[in-house]
């Protein structure tokens, strides 16, 4: 896949960073999704989350393949062979699944964020990024619909469901802003036409859309005052939850990193 041919060295490096962050978000959340396999509250959801996990992990593989054509690092190496400090996923995505409400809320918020990001990629001057974004958006539409349906169902599902959903919203909303943490190389991507604007500027639209979706479901955006993503996964600062996740995810691969599966 031809990518980044017309970019400067700095532009290619920035694009590599951005693709890594996109891939890492999808991989880590995809792994959390896969943990519901055989444990979801309904068999339909067991299947849905297995399917969504496959989608997200395939999207990660696609972003890693783009990095491979940019820098020559293999996708398995990228997925399984990096230390935790080199992972660029937003902190909220590495959090353990907690309960069903947390899972639904986090996934829906992420899907909204991802919708804004991939919409931005549709306006890239890199043709491959535009067509990849178009592909991903067709699959992601089903995730958004699924998330909306569950958010409504839980928020209207009786006092306990409502209470847990509101608690999940309170927990997720702050840390979710870390998805749009501003990064030094963003401006390079804008200057070289890879992105129409800095991705961190999408945060305001993200918060508007989330506020709208929550009020449609009778849920509240509680008073602000939090720190956003205090740990800051985007800078490579992660907690023990990601260490454990990577340990589990790469266990088989590490037995023989050169094996052809």
């Amino acid at each position, binding site marked *: 896949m031809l990518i980044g041919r017309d970019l400067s060295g700095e532009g290619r490096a920035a694009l590599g960073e951005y693709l890594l962050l996109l891939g890492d978000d999808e991989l880590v959340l995809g792994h959390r999704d896969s943990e519901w396999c055989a444990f979801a509250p309904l068999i339909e959801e067991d299947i849905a989350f297995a*399917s969504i996990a*496959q989608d997200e992990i*395939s*999207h990660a593989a696609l972003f890693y393949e783009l990095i491979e054509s940019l820098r020559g690092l293999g996708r398995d190496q990228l997925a399984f062979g990096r230390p935790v400090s080199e992972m660029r996923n937003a902190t909220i995505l590495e959090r353990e699944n907690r309960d069903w409400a947390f899972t639904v809320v986090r996934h829906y918020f992420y899907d909204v964020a991802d919708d804004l990001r991939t919409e931005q990629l549709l306006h890239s001057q890199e043709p*491959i990024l535009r*067509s990849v974004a*178009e592909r991903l958006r067709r699959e992601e539409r*089903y995730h958004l619909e699924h998330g909306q349906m569950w958010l409504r169902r839980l928020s209207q599902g009786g006092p306990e469901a409502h209470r847990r959903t509101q608690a999940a919203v309170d927990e997720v909303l702050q840390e979710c802003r870390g998805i749009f943490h501003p990064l030094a190389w963003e401006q390079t991507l804008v200057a070289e036409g890879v992105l129409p604007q800095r991705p961190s500027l999408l945060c305001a639209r993200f918060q508007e859309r989330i506020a709208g979706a929550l009020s449609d479901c009778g849920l509240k955006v509680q008073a602000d005052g939090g720190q956003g993503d205090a740990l800051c996964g985007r800078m490579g600062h992660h907690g023990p939850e990601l260490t454990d996740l990577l340990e589990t995810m790469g266990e088989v691969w590490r037995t023989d990193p050169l094996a052809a599966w």
Partner: protein
Amino acid sequence: MLKSEALTEDAVRGALRSVSDPEIPVLSIVDLGLVEEVRILGERVEVDLLPTFTGCPALGFIAQAAEERLLRIPGVREAKVSFTFDPAWSTDRISPAGKLALQSFGIAPPGGVPACPYCGSHKTRIDASFGPTRCRSVYYCDACQNPFERMKAL
């Protein structure tokens, strides 16, 4: 030895009609709309395919089967099958013959209110967006009371 002009794009596309998605054997990759470009360079044939769902596990098998089939065309000594993301594949690329093949295989094709593949009724409704594979949803027929699968519209 055949002259290279005997090798035509139609012959290549015709040959690829016998290559199918391993999960839906009645549907050729031509009817599925995967064949984007065919290039004939003397005795070498290059084919660009569009991946259906990103990372679909069937893609590797499809590429391998297509290369093997191309090498059986008289006059072809080299075959290379690659995937390209540009343009993006969508279910709109499935041909009318492909849609009929899907329906007869028991999977309702995308587009409009699906007809039940068992009884033909349109009294059908969605049961679950996510089905047994990433490309299928589960529907229910209120006429014959059977669940059935439908290919997701992409």
